[in-house]
C-alpha cells in the first residue's frame, strides 16, 4: 500500500474572498449592472457562494438582487445507479424566471452533469433570457459540452484526486483542498 498523502490546501479563506469579489465585479461588468439579474445557488455548496455573491453585489450596487436555491437530485441522470447520495433537499425559486438573466452558482465544476441537470430544472420554472455559470473551482474532466462564464480558479486535477470546497457556513472553515481519493 503506497502511503496516502495528506490533503493539500490550494486556496485559503483570503483567496476565496478575493475570487468571489472579482467574480462579483465580472458579473456586473458583463451584464452592465443588475437589471433583471438573479442568482441561483446549487445545493449545497453553491447556496453559500451565491449568498456571498449576493452580499458583494448588493454592497457594490446598493441594491439587492433575488436569490434562489436549487436541488438538482430529481434531475440527475443516475438516480437509480449511484450508491452515495445526499438526501433530497428543498428547492426555492421565489421569483419569476421569465426573461431573467440567471447566474447559476456552484462550488466545483467537474463533469458538467450537475450543471446539465440544473439547467433542465431551471427551464422547468420558466424561460430565462440567459443562464450564466459561476464556479469557485474548475477542475476539468468535462463529460458534456459545458463551460463556466466566471471561474474563481482553474485547478488541473487527476481523476483519482478529490477536490473539496469547505465553507465557513457548513464546515466552519473556508478552504479548498485537493487530496488523493481513498
Amino acid at each position, binding site marked *: 500500500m503506497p502511503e496516502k498523502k495528506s490533503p493539500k490546501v490550494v486556496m485559503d479563506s483570503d483567496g476565496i474572498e478575493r475570487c468571489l469579489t472579482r467574480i462579483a465585479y465580472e458579473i456586473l461588468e458583463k451584464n452592465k449592472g443588475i437589471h433583471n439579474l438573479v442568482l441561483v445557488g446549487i445545493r449545497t455548496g453553491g447556496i453559500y457562494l451565491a449568498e456571498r455573491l449576493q452580499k458583494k453585489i448588493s454592497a457594490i450596487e446598493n441594491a439587492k438582487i433575488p436569490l434562489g436555491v436549487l*436541488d438538482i*437530485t*430529481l*434531475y440527475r441522470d443516475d*438516480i*437509480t*445507479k449511484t*450508491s452515495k*447520495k445526499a*438526501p*433530497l*433537499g*428543498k*428547492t*426555492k425559486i421565489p421569483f419569476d424566471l421569465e426573461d431573467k438573466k440567471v447566474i447559476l452558482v456552484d462550488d466545483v465544476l467537474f463533469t458538467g452533469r450537475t450543471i446539465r441537470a440544473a439547467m*433542465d*430544472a431551471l427551464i*422547468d*420554472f*420558466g424561460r430565462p433570457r440567459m443562464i450564466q455559470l459561476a464556479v469557485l473551482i474548475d477542475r476539468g474532466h468535462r463529460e458534456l459540452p459545458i463551460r463556466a462564464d466566471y471561474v474563481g480558479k482553474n485547478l488541473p486535477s487527476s481523476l483519482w484526486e478529490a477536490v473539496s470546497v469547505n465553507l465557513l457556513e457548513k464546515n466552519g472553515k473556508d478552504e479548498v483542498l485537493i487530496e488523493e481519493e481513498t
Partner: protein
Amino acid sequence: MKLAKKDILGIQEMTVDEINLILETAESFLEISTREIKKVPTLRGKSIINLFYEASTRTRTSFEIAGKRLSADTINISASTSSVVKGETLIDTARNLEAMNPDIIVLRHSAAGAPHLLASLVRQSIINAGDGAHEHPSQALLDMMTIREKKGRLAGLKVAIIGDILHSRVARSNIYGLSKMGAQVVVAGPATMMPRNIEQMGIKACTKLEDAITDADVVMMLRIQLEREKQNIFPSLREYARHYCLNRRNIKLAKPDAIVMHPGPMNRGVEISPDVADDPACSVILDQVNNGVAVRMALLYLLSGGNE
C-alpha cells in the same frame, strides 16, 4: 440514510428513522406541486400500476398524480372494469401484471394481508394503499406530515382518534406511527366499534368522545362506514351523531390551537359537523390531501432507488 425496503406494507414494520426519511423527503416534494410546470423527470420510464379492488377517489388519484408529477407512467386498474369480474384470482392477476414488467404495484384490497401476499409472489415493489381493516400506511404518513407541519413536532402531542376503531385501517396505521414517533394516542368510540384489549397497543381508550378530546392537540375523526348500520353495531346514524359528532360545542374541550383532521370521505353531520369541517382556523382536512400527493411522491421515489 436509506430506505432498505422492497415494499411499503405497513407502519408496524417501519422504524422511526424510516418514517423521518419519508416525511423529510415528502416535505421537499411539496414545492413541485406549486410550480407552473408540475413535473420533474425523476422516474421517467418507470411504470406504476394502481390496482384497486375497492372504491377510492382520493388515494387512487393521489397516487396517480404523484406518479405523473415524477414522470412515471401510471396505469389504473379497478376491479369493476377488470378480469376480476370474470373470476380471475388476485394471484393470477398479479402474475399477469408482473409479466408486463411494471416497477411498482399500488394495491388496495378488502382482505387484510393481500399486499403482503403479493409482495412475496412478485418481484415488483408493492405499496399497500389499504388492506381490509389492517393498515393504510400512506394515509398515516400524510397525517403525520400534516401534524408535523402544523405543530412542528409529533413527540409529546396528544392525539385523539374518534370513531369506528375496530374497522379502521387509518386508525391502526396512525396508532402504530404516532406511538413510534412519541405522541400520546387516545381513542374513543362505541364499545361495539372498539377492539378488545386495544390498550395493548400502548394507547388509552375511552367510550366518551369528550374524555378523549379534552386537552388534545390533534382531533382525528374517522369515517363511519354507513354499511355498518345494517350490522347492528350501532342503533342509528342519528344516535351515533348525538354521541360522537365533533361540533362547535365539544371542540372547545380540546386545546385552543387544536387541529381537526379527517381522512375522507366525510359524512357531514354524522361524525363531523360542517361548521367544524369547514373552519379554516382548525380544520386541516384539505392540507392532508395536499400533503398526500407529496408523501406518495416520496414513497415512489424512495422505492425507485432514490437515496439508495
